[in-house]
């Protein structure tokens, strides 16, 4: 419904944060010329820790740690190749249709 405008709400938030990428993805990103910025990762982690410390989900909380262990287990998995292939395909289709459009 109003999804089309959702991005506007996110405009004020900080630049997309980087998270550590699994190996196959990292290779892909490096191949694309994308550099992962370790510094911003660390700053983000520090910010998250500060914030969580007062809601019982901080570094000393059993529940917080288990939440992150569970989440991290999936996050650290190798990204299935089908997603990388899907993105390649989408990109390809778009490039071709753009080329088509400029020719017309």
């Amino acid at each position, binding site marked *: 419904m109003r999804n089309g405008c959702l991005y506007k709400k996110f405009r004020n938030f900080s630049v997309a944060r980087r998270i550590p990428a699994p190996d196959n993805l990292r290779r892909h990103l490096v191949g694309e010329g994308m550099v992962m910025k370790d510094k911003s990762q660390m700053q983000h982690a520090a910010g998250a820790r500060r914030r969580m410390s007062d809601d019982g989900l901080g570094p000393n909380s059993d529940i917080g740690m288990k939440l992150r262990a569970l989440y991290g287990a999936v996050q650290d998995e190798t*990204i299935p190749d089908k997603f990388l292939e899907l*993105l390649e395909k989408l990109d390809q289709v778009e490039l071709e249709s753009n080329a088509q459009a400029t020719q017309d």
Partner: protein
Amino acid sequence: MANDKTTNGPPSFKRELLATLPSLRAFAFSLSGRHDKADDLVQDTIMKAWAKQESFELGTNIKAWLFTILRNEFYSQMRKRGREVQDSDGLFTERMAVHPSQFGHMDLADFKKALDQLPDDQREAVILIGASGFSYEEAAEICTCAVGTMKSRVSRARARLQDLLQVSGEGDYGPDAISTQVTSGPPVS
């Protein structure tokens, strides 16, 4: 020689999307409770996001944007099919067994079961805040609710999880619960 290095739209959108995939998968798994469902969700999210990438401004918070799309997708599918939680994801325990973690994998399997018992709104709240690293403001935007609502969902979720984990397996959990609270955090050896 103008090649794709100089075009500024799609290639970098793709990179941003790629960089967010790991956490997007983790979020999808947290919502759906299953790997196969999670990957279907991620695939649908990629397609949707790609189709409306014009509505996204590069440099803004793509993670929150993608999480919003995935979450909407999840709830619209759930309305159609219902949530199938029960752990047919036996794969899960297997996968956890090889993941390096300070917790035993059975411990985390119990935790996942407890998480699955939470109402959907509380589960997503505690994950977005506790694991995905969003601020309350961002999480509230993603879930289209008030910041105060988000806070109370998180605290109810935490209380409920505490209850569930203490009740399950009293015997083997008892002494450990205390020692983990005291000694929590990685050892500084």
